[in-house]
Each structure stands twice: as C-alpha cells, then as structure tokens.
C-alpha cells in the first residue's frame, strides 16, 4: 500500500502510520506564508581528466616492485577438524593477542544478518556488564563483532595467558540460549529505530540502491531489512536465526600472536571449537539474474534537504570471462574502474568535480566484489543547485573513459597506487586481517590478490579503455535522494532522455 503523505509547504510531515497517533492533534494550517525562491542551477562543463606531470628536482623513488607476501606474514594454517581451521598471523606491538572467531558462509548469505549484528552488539554489552567467573576481565571491553552477508567475526584482544578463556567465551556466544538474557523488546526497538535513523540521516538511499543495483529478488536483498521478522522478534526467533547461521558456517579461528601455539594448546583449542554448531546446511550458489533498467533515474523525494545524494553504478556479470573470450574478468574491471575514476584525490571524478569545479565535498568509487554479486559503485553528494551539473559530470566521465585513451602518466599513477596499496596493507594489522577474512569468505587466500597484482602490473591505456567500454556501454543504475520539487527542472534540463521515477 502506498502510504498517504501529509505535505505542508512542500515539507513532508508524516506517513499515514505515524499520523494515526498524531491525527487528534493535527490542525490544518493554511500555507499562506511559504516562500518559494527561484534557484539558479549550475551549468554543465566538459569533463576534464587530470594531467599527471612529473615533479622537477624531486628526490627519486627507487621502485620496490615486490608483489609477494612477506614470509613472516604468510598465515600458518592448521586443520583442526573438517570445517575447523586455525590461522596464526603475526602479533601486534601492543602484545594484546587478537582472537577472531570467524564463521563464513560462501555460498549463501546469512539470513537476517542485520538482526544478528544487533544481537551480537547487545551481547557484547551484556558480557561487559554481567561478568561471570570465567569472563576474562581485562579483555572483555575489547569485544567486537563484525557481521557481513557472508561472514560473522567475533573478536577479543587479550594478553597471552587469557587465550583459552577468551576462546571459550567466544564459542559460548554461539551456544544455544546465548541470547536468552537480552531485552528482546529493546532489540526490536533498536532495529526499528535504525530504519528511522537511516531516513533521518539520508542513509535510506542505501536500501533503495541495494534493491535496484542487485535486483529485488537477489538473495542479498532478502537477507536484510525483513521488517516483519524485526517487528515480531522473540527470543525463539532470534535463536532460530543464530542457529541457522551456525549450521551454514565453516569455522576459522584467527589468532594474531607472536608466541607459538603449543601442541597442548592446539588440542584445547580444537576441543573448544568442537562445541560450535555443526555445519550441515551448505547450499549451492544461485545464479545471478540481474536485468538493467535503461535510462531510469530513481529519486527519493526528501523535501527540505539541502543536498542531493547520488549513487550510480553497475551490476557486473558474476562469472569471470575466460581470457580467450577477449573480455576482461569482472573482478578486475570492477577494481580497475572504481579506482580509475573514484580513488579519492586522484580519481578522475574527485579531481574534476571537486578540485576543479567545486561541486562536491567528495565523490568516490568502490568495488563490492562479493561471492554472489560484483557491484561497481560511485557515490557522492552535492548542493541542490549543482545537482544536474554533478550527475551530468559523472555521466560525461563514463563516456570519456570509453572514447579517449588515458595518458601514460595517468595509467602509471593508477598502477603504482594499486601496487602500493597492496604493500601498505600488510603493515596495517587491522586492514590486513579484515582483508584476510574477506578472502576466507570467498574460499580464497593471499594468492588470489597476488594473482590480481600481476594483472595490474600489465596495465596499459588500452586495457583501461577496453574495461570502460565493456562496463560503461550501457546506462548505469542511478538512485538519488533530494528535494525533488526544487531539483526536477534541473534534472529535466540536464538529463532530458532519463525517465524520473519516485519509488
């Protein structure tokens, strides 16, 4: 049902649901004092790529060239049992061991992952406030949980002598009845509140973006924002969600620590891991059946907002094309194009739209290479009067990337950037571990990104153009959020062949 909306002076007051409560008190006002100010829209300019000129008289940087993983950073992996693996990574300067219990589900997403995320966060609060005899006091405050669609990571940072206690606590969190002490009504309220906060701070655009870029029937969309489940959540249904997550998981224990793990400790760890839910529900990956929308511009009308948020991008084919098809594989194209146009300061979009034209505080690109979808996304915001020029600016760059070859200096800067990102990641333990977990959730290891390095080292302007032609030849999926009454004339003028739809 399309909600009835009350509008006053062009400002949305409330939807019919919340109005039920307010209707006794709502007095109709006459909109006599509304002022309409005519807005002057920013004109379009031709796209301009950055020009990369070498510095004169600057100290020379010797090439490091290495794209191997340093020996001491290669994880020591032991199989403890089927689907139970132990990975030892180097320790950190603080000497606090990071202990990560990671559940991964490569072939299917975790259903109601948003509910799980909230429940684990709340559980962390309970652990810190209701300590038991076995709670490792001096590391319980460090508890952290990270839930994604394909992985759940529970982490503690503890001194050497707390390793086994910490692991026991992490395993307990997955046990039956673990959430029985939580205030379930509070959890329901928090989940509902998140939805309102997202609308309040503009993040509602991400939900519509996900619906459109993935396609409404994609399993990822079904795995999140299940309002019916959230509204009726009970201890039993939460238990069921956690149980299902447990039985579709493979388990990895990652320990960042310099001291070695003695065989006796390994036996204790293996015994603890045996208490985890037994994997029994692995499914085959589903085929991706996304269909694009042509030149359709989805607009979330947000009366009163002073900026327009823009999300624009592509759903790339999931299966990598073989090299003899002459196509560049999706993962590489996605990484390449996200960084070429969207790598902050030196990305083409940031350079042109922020640094040259001042249309935005930031415009970025990112590749979401998940097991069941490869998504290329560009995102940024602009003031209302720049909306048309900003969006047209992005579209013009997608076109330019297909028609004109990049200069060699620009290609070199892009390849250097990727190489250095790779090397620098290994000196940042948090980043390194997060990337490693991401690889595990795709059943890969470091070798996967070492292989990708080789593709980057062969990068040239023709490859870039080919990737752009392969991906950008069709109109992108585009979702924006802004004050439609004010920006519509601008959109119609600057994007005359796009069909505006308000979902």
């Amino acid at each position, binding site marked *: 049902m399309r909600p009835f909306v009350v509008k006053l002076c062009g400002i949305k007051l409330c939807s019919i649901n919340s109005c039920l409560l307010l209707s006794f008190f709502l007095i109709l006002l006459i909109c006599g004092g509304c002022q309409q100010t005519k807005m002057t829209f920013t004109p379009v300019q031709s796209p301009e790529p950055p020009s990369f000129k070498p510095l*004169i008289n600057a100290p020379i940087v010797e090439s490091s060239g290495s794209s191997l993983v340093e020996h001491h950073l290669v994880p020591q992996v032991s199989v403890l049992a089927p689907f139970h693996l132990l990975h030892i990574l180097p320790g950190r300067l*603080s*000497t*606090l061991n990071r202990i990560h219990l990671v559940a991964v589900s490569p072939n299917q997403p975790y259903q109601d992952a948003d509910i799980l995320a909230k429940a684990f966060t709340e559980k962390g609060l309970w652990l810190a406030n209701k300590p038991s005899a076995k709670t490792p006091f*001096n590391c319980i405050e460090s508890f952290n949980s990270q839930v994604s669609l394909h992985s759940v990571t529970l982490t503690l940072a503890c001194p050497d002598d707390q390793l086994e206690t910490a692991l026991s606590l992490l395993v307990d969190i997955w046990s039956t009845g673990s959430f029985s002490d939580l205030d379930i009504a509070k959890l329901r309220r928090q989940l509902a509140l998140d939805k*309102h906060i997202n609308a309040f701070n503009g993040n509602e655009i991400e939900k519509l973006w996900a619906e459109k870029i993935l396609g409404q029937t994609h399993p990822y969309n079904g795995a999140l924002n299940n309002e019916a489940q959230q509204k009726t959540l009970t201890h039993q249904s939460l238990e069921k969600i956690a149980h299902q997550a447990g039985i579709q998981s493979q388990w990895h224990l990652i320990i960042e620590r310099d001291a070695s793990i003695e065989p006796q400790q390994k036996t204790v760890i293996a015994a603890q891991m045996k208490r985890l839910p037994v994997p029994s529900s692995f499914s085959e990956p589903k085929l991706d059946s996304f269909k694009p929308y042509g030149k359709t511009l989805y607009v979330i009308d947000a009366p009163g907002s002073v900026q327009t948020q823009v999300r624009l991008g592509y759903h790339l084919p999931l299966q990598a094309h073989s090299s003899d098809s002459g196509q560049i594989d999706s993962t590489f194209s996605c990484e390449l194009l996200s960084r070429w146009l969207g790598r902050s*300061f030196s990305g083409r979009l940031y350079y042109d739209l922020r640094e040259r034209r001042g249309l*935005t505080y930031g415009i970025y690109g990112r590749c979401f290479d998940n097991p069941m979808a490869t998504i290329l996304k560009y995102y940024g915001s602009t003031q209302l009067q720049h909306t048309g020029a900003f969006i047209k600016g992005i579209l013009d760059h997608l076109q330019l990337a297909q028609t004109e070859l990049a200069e060699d200096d620009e290609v070199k*800067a892009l390849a250097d950037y990727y190489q250095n990102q790779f090397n620098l990641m290994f*000196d940042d333990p948090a980043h390194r571990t997060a990337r490693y977990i991401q690889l595990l959730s795709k059943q890969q290891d470091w070798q996967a990104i070492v292989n990708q390095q080789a593709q980057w080292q062969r990068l040239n302007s023709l490859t870039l153009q080919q990737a752009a032609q392969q991906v950008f030849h069709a109109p992108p999926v585009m979702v924006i959020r802004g004050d439609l009454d004010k920006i519509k004339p601008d959109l119609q003028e600057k994007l005359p062949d796009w069909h505006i739809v308000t979902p």
Partner: protein
Amino acid sequence: MAHLFIAATITTSVAAANDELVKLALPLYQVEKTIEYRRLDNGLEVRLLPLAQRQSVAIASQFAVGSRNESQGQTGYAHLFEHMLFKGSQNAPGDSYSQTMSALSGRFNASTFFDYTNYYLNLPSNALELALWLEADRFIRPSLTTDTVKNQQQTVLEEMATTIDNQPYIRPAMEFLLKQVQGTPYGHAVIGSKTDIEAATTESLTQFHQTFYRPDTLQLSIVGQVPPQTLTWVKAYFADWPMPNNTPQGFHPLQVNRQSVHHEIIDARGPWPGLLLAWHTVGRSHQDAAAISLVESYLLQSRSSVLAKLSLTEPKQLLYYSLPLTMEHFGVMNLVMVPRANISLDQLTEQITAIIDDFAAGGLTSEQLKQLKLRSLQQQLAKLDNDISLATTLSATLEKDRLTPLSGPWERVNAVTNADIIRVTRQYLQPGVVRLDLLPPWYIRWSKAVLEWLPTGWTDSLEEQVL
C-alpha cells in the same frame, strides 16, 4: 589481628592489581625507549620510531594552530588553509602533491581542530625522502592562487552543508554550545562562518600562513621502517626554515562559570525530541584531566559505564552517545539522549544528575578503579597497533611529556586515586549542567507530551507501532 589480616589482604590485592597494570603497560615503555628525539635549532620537534618487519613509514605533522588562533572576521581560516596545503607549493605546483601521494600512499589526509592542524600519511619506506621534501615544500612554501582559493572555498561550503546543515538540530546546537564560551578562543566553530570563508583572499590566507605556520609550532613524527638517513633528510629539508623572533601565540585555561543553563531549540526537520547535556571540565594540559577522563569513561563512555548498565533492560532512552571532547585548555563531558515515548526530557536529565550525585558521594571501589585504569591502558595500547595512529599520537604530545610521549599520559592515569575521582566529580560535574532540549515541530511535541501521560503499557504498545 583481624585488622592486620584485612590490611595484608588489601595490600596484596592492590599489589597484584598494580603488577597486572605494570605488566600490561610494558609495551608503552618498550616502544618509547626506541624513539629518537631531536629538537632542531629552529624549534621543530622530531621523533623517529623505527619498527621491525615493516616496508612502510607513517608521517604525522601537527602544527599548534587551530581555530582558536583565528581573529574576528577570519573564522574558518585554519581549516580553509589546511585545504589549501593540498593545492600546490613552489616545487609541487597545482595538484601534483595529491597526485604523487595518491600514487604512493595508503592514506593521506589532514584534520583541523580548535588547537591544532594535523597532517598525516603513510607510504612505502623507499619514498620517505620524497615525502619529506614534499611536506617541507608545502609547509614552508605554499603557493596560493585566486582559482585554488575560490575552488576550496566552494569545497568547504560543501563540507559545511554535508556535515552541519543537512542534519536537523546540528547547527543551532553547535551555536548554542559555542555561545557558552563566547569571547574566548574556543567561542567559534572550527569550520567558521560562511561569510568569513567567502571573504577569504589569497593575501589574507597567505598572511595567516606566515603568522602561524612556523617550525617551533610543528611536531613531526616518523614511524615504521625508518632508514638511517632519515634525520639527515629532515635537517636538509626543514632546518633552513627560520624561527620567527617573536614567541608563538600563547593561551591559558578557560575560566568557566559552572552554573546550570537550560535552553531549547526547535527544528522543523526534527523527527523526535532529543536532549543534549554538557558539563564544562578541564583541558588535557590540566592536572585533573586524567581523573576526569576516568570519570567520563565510568559514567558514560565505556561499554560497562553506569549508563550502559542501567540501559541493559528497559532503558529510559531509545539511544544515547557520549564522546570525549578535550581541547588543550578546556574540556566538555557531553551526552546526547533520545527519550522513549513515555519519558520526558526532564526525567532523562534527573536520571543523569542522580547518577552524578550518587557517584560524587561514594566514588569507586579499588577493584572498579583498577578496571577503569585497565580500560584506559588498553585504549592507549591500541594506539600502538596502527602506525598512522601511533605517529599522530606522538605528534600530539604535550610539552610536559616531550620525552615520555606514551608513558607520561599513562602514568598520570595510573596515579589517579579514588579521592581524586570524588573531588573532580564534585568540582566539575556537580555544580551545574548545560542542558539543551532539541525539539521537533509542534505536532510531534504535543503528541509526545500526551504519550508521557498515558499508562506505560499503552505507550509501549503505541511506541512499538509507530516505530
């Protein structure tokens, strides 16, 4: 005899607690011992921290210049100038700094606060000399043009729209809080006023640079794979930067009137009421700063704070958050709360003031104090685990910690007693709170008022439906 036994037990447990803290704190001392400290003749403070098994270095440069240095009509200059330092210098014109760093660096950026401006980056160690050459060039010889100033004025206005004006309540709440310290160096927003930003010129910004960017206000820290020639490079690129004859602008602790203030703001875009509470405390250079940080953590900010405990079941608020806000000479303990449907803003305020009054009366047990110190220590240890954050921490060192940048702050925390905790709570939190009610339009306020009168069962059910 019994007394003796109890005394012995207490002494033993206190000693054990101290042993545990001493053992955990060891990495702070071990890392600190390996830092090479140098102060160049021009006053520039250098800290080099070589770390094993690294391929990269992190560089953090913190200047003691922030919005508190700005004069009337030039608000926002420190922040705008920070933007300008990415837009060209004598040897790296135009966007070549950003382009070079973008190719080399994992992260490079800057931030401006009331007291300081901080530039940081990390990059492969083999590019360290180039990075120092570039940093020196932009700090000493920035090159501003009419076009780049105009462009960055626009960018800052976009930043203002994104972070402040696009959200209900933010601007009026910010202006109200700043008004409490009007007439002091902390009396205006870091981002400045739109009028002042638009009025900035190449000349006025250049003058700002000449006045405040000087070697004796800079702390430069380099962490990671630090090559042996590093100090030579630092001297080669920074030592010729002359120290001005005058001393840098000095500041003093704020004299704050700690009486209670109550005010409200109404925002037509507000979806629901909110409550902002603030207590004027002390700056990080003050002798009570360590005790205040423990009190804030215990009452509001940690995962096991008093408020977190009270909120485990049937909390009075839908959500709350509290972040430390500490400047060099001034601090604010703050709390933002969003009430449940049947709870008024008055009730939320009463709950918090009651928590503070209880705490001021009793303080902590020795075990609670130990836990609190442990938590603080772990936060300090966590800074060691990221090279950029470690370099940034080193460059933010107070003069009194010049040679003990890691252990100095920890030792002050470790020295806090329960008597200190009670004293600072009575002195800084009990006398008065600044309260700001964040109110939505009238129809939501009226509905909310009705909900507060209804029986709890009804309100809970209505709240759930509306949510």
